[in-house]
């Protein structure tokens, strides 16, 4: 183990374990008002009239007419209204906010408001949508020729559902005006995203807006773009009230109306000639919901991963993120990759069956290695450790023997085991880091020789305060306790980019390392000093062109192999997870405990996505699974045997050899789990999550 990997006490441990850490809902300001949003109850309608009850003194309504800047939330595009204008496009769309000093009175007023809607037919089925917000295609080799010359073309369609981030702290923020400026503080991943959105909605200059991240109770992508929307709504209210306004979402509001993982439908045509895979023609649809939010970038990552960890020389990938009258989807750990990795892993399983092979044999034959071309004709520049990972998983689980053993079972209890292999591209897709983010990070040395890290990345539990401080302290050769990293405040810190895309340690951590190296050389005891670094793209990267969808989509990749073993009770259709094993290469861990925590937490979220986290809307477009009672996430008893191992595979351009970590462990759980279910049930399966109800339906066929 590298010295840096040795675990230390986390910087935020003490305040959190003792209950002293203050989250946004724990802050109470003088004269603070409470706000609650009125959400549309129709999926598509024109707003005809809004009838308000009499408002007691000190209570008021905030809506589109109060937006002093542009009534649009700046995300990637500017199409999400801050408050609805003449129409509503999904159930949950915010129409107005009721604000006042007493929360219960605010709720009473909210419940008495009557909205008169002129209903229109909502479009709910993504397959029927003719509005593609985003549309990308790319090709390599000659797919038409491969399809024409194939002995057979294997065609199959796969579906994945919503996944809700289910951070335990719901969305929440406080905005307060002062000295002609506006401050917004709260639970968020990306302070500078919020700043850009709020200044546009208020019509302020950027320097008149201040964003402060409070201790954040989990994000997982759900606090990437959504806080920009909420911040605009609250800032508009605070400006009108000229007082602080706090909004904390309740759980049902959060689950039903905030962004979640895009549901997908992917169709694969696999050309087979002489028992070889000669090409793949892939069509992907993501349900974007009513507005674009982050769908363009989520779709890009999904499409780049569509051929999985396999060398497919003749490839065509086409994808659309389409509009429906449903809640806008957004970022969630994995960011488009879990959907397509599920599909490609399952199609490889099924093609293998067609060929009379076990899926692992087929996958091993096409698995990429260093020097191979990526799907977008970039290159895997570094070692690909999949073979060692497969070997290690096999040793841990006796995988190959069990696969054979579990064929053709009868009896009430049937076991199955499945495996997945996958990667996560580290950092922003394509040229994002170079052209859009342009990260800047700083170190400030104080006269007492302590050092403050100045960056805009947020610790939402993933341990960034600790890992950043370790990198800086170790590089400077000073004590861990001499370095601190406070929650970002845009008045104080430069824009080192958002806390997304498994980029913080690899990209910003590397900037901090370089800043620390320079500071070390210039170090003057007892003096104040500053060291600043700017992002530079590594020179080995083949530049990515989004127009051609070509080049290195990522500088490097994190790798993983998962195996999951199940036992199905064919009488009750319930499934017990006997074991879940994951081997993860995230480069050199900056802190072993933190990385293990990320891998275990992400893997379990992935198993939830695979097996139990079912969310859907009804024929009115209303999400029914809007509570933790109706949308179950894994508890401590669901996967007692969850094993994670780290494989050290240093990355030359990351700090101490680290690369992206946070998202990887979620990406491959679903195909491993569903393949295990196939192994147990003896049928081909094509959807995730694969729930108890799905098992029951499958058993009707199996047992007849």
């Amino acid at each position, binding site marked *: 183990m590298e010295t840096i990997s040795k*675990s230390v*006490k*986390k910087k*935020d*441990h*003490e*305040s*959190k*374990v*003792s*209950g*002293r*850490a*203050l*989250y946004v*809902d*724990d802050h109470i300001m003088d004269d603070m008002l409470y706000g609650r949003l009125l959400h549309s109850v129709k999926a598509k309608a024109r707003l005809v009239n809004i009838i308000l009850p009499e408002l007691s003194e000190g209570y008021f309504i905030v809506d589109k007419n109060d937006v002093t800047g542009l009534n649009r939330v700046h995300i990637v595009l500017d199409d999400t209204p801050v408050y609805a204008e003449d129409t509503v496009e999904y159930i949950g769309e915010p129409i107005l906010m009721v604000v006042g000093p007493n929360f219960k009175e605010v709720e009473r007023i909210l419940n008495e408001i009557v909205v008169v809607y002129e209903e229109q037919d909502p479009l709910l089925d993504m397959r029927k949508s003719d509005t593609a917000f985003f549309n990308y295609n790319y090709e390599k080799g000659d797919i038409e020729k491969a399809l024409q010359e194939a002995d057979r073309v294997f065609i199959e369609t796969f579906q994945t559902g919503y996944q809700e*981030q*289910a*951070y*335990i*702290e*719901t969305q929440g923020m406080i905005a307060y005006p002062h000295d002609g400026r506006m401050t917004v503080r709260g639970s968020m991943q990306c302070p500078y995203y919020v700043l850009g959105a709020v200044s546009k909605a208020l019509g302020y200059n950027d320097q008149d807006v201040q964003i402060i991240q409070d*201790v*954040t*109770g*989990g994000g*997982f992508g759900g606090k990437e773009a959504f806080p920009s929307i909420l911040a605009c709504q609250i800032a508009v209210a605070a400006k009108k009230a000229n007082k602080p306004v706090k909004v904390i979402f*309740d*759980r049902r509001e959060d689950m039903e109306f905030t962004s979640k993982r895009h549901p997908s439908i992917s169709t694969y045509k696999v050309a087979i000639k002489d028992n070889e895979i000669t090409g793949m023609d892939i069509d992907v649809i993501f349900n974007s919901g009513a507005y674009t939010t982050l769908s363009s970038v989520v779709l890009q990552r999904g499409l780049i991963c569509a051929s999985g960890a396999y060398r497919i020389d003749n490839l065509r990938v086409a994808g659309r993120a389409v509009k429906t009258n449903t809640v806008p989807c957004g970022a969630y750990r994995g960011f488009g990759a879990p959907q397509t990795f599920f599909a490609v892993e399952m199609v490889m399983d099924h093609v293998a069956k067609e060929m009379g092979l076990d899926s692992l044999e087929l996958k091993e034959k096409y698995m990429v290695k260093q020097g191979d071309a990526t799907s977008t004709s970039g290159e895997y520049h570094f070692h690909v450790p999949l073979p060692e990972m497969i070997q290690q998983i096999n040793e841990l689980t006796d995988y190959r023997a069990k696969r054979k053993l579990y064929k053709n079972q009868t009896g009430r209890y049937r076991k199955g085991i499945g495996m997945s292999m996958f990667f996560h591209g580290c950092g922003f897709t394509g040229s994002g880091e170079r052209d859009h983010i342009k990260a800047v990070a700083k170190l400030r040395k104080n006269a007492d020789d302590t050092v403050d890290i100045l960056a805009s990345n947020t610790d*939402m*539990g*993933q*341990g960034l305060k600790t890992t950043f401080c370790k990198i800086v302290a170790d590089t400077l050769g000073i004590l861990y306790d001499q370095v601190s990293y406070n929650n970002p405040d845009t008045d104080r810190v430069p824009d080192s980019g958002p806390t997304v895309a498994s980029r913080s340690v690899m990209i910003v951590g590397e900037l901090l390392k370089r800043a620390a190296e320079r500071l070390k050389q210039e170090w003057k005891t007892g003096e104040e000093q500053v060291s600043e670094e700017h992002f530079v793209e590594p020179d080995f990267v083949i530049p990515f062109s989004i127009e051609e969808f070509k080049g290195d989509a990522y500088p490097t990749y994190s790798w993983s192999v998962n195996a999951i073993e199940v036992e199905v009770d064919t009488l009750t259709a319930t499934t017990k997870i006997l074991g879940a094993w994951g081997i993860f290469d995230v480069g050199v861990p900056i*802190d072993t*405990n*933190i990385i*293990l*925590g990320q*891998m*275990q*937490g*992400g*893997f*379990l*979220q992935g198993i939830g996505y695979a097996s139990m986290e079912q969310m859907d809307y009804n024929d009115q477009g209303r999400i029914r699974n809007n*509570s*933790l*009672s109706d949308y179950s*996430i894994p*508890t*401590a*008893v669901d*996967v*007692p045997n*969850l094993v*994670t191992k780290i494989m050290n595979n240093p990355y030359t351009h990351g700090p101490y050899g680290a690369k992206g970590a946070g998202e990887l462990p979620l990406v491959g759980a679903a195909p491993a789990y569903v393949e295990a279910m196939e192994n147990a049930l003896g049928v081909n399966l094509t959807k995730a999550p694969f729930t108890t109800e799905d098992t029951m339906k499958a058993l009707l066929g199996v047992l007849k």
Partner: protein
Amino acid sequence: MTKFMLNGQDVRSILKANERLLDVLRNEFGISGVKCGCKEGECGACSVILDGRLVNSCMVAVGSIEGSTVITIEGYRETERFAVLDKAYASVSAVQCGFCIPGMVLASECILIKNPNPTEADIRDGISGNLCRCTGYNAIVKAIGIAAKEGEGLW
């Protein structure tokens, strides 16, 4: 009015009897270590120890606890047992976002008070009403096991 003992002190709530204990603790007594995650008894973030039992304070009407004893993280963190749990949680970095942690620590206490030498299955069962979305639970389970060993005699 409801009288009860909160973290070792006699207190009286002047709120209505049907108010949630969660809201009473947070809004009337400024106890911010009790977190609100769902208000429907599913997540365990608002766990407190009520007369020696772990309960979701969002599911308890304050009028029903006349004469009872309530312990939140604010009271518990002053104890020797907390110090052992604190150290154990730190040693395996079991705290990530931290929102479930006050409830989780109180759940740990309730596991160990009932059974000072719990098996892994006992521990998992004992925290199964406290949702954590960050850790996958392994580190928390490990921490409680470490505390059981290190805190010999305390529970």
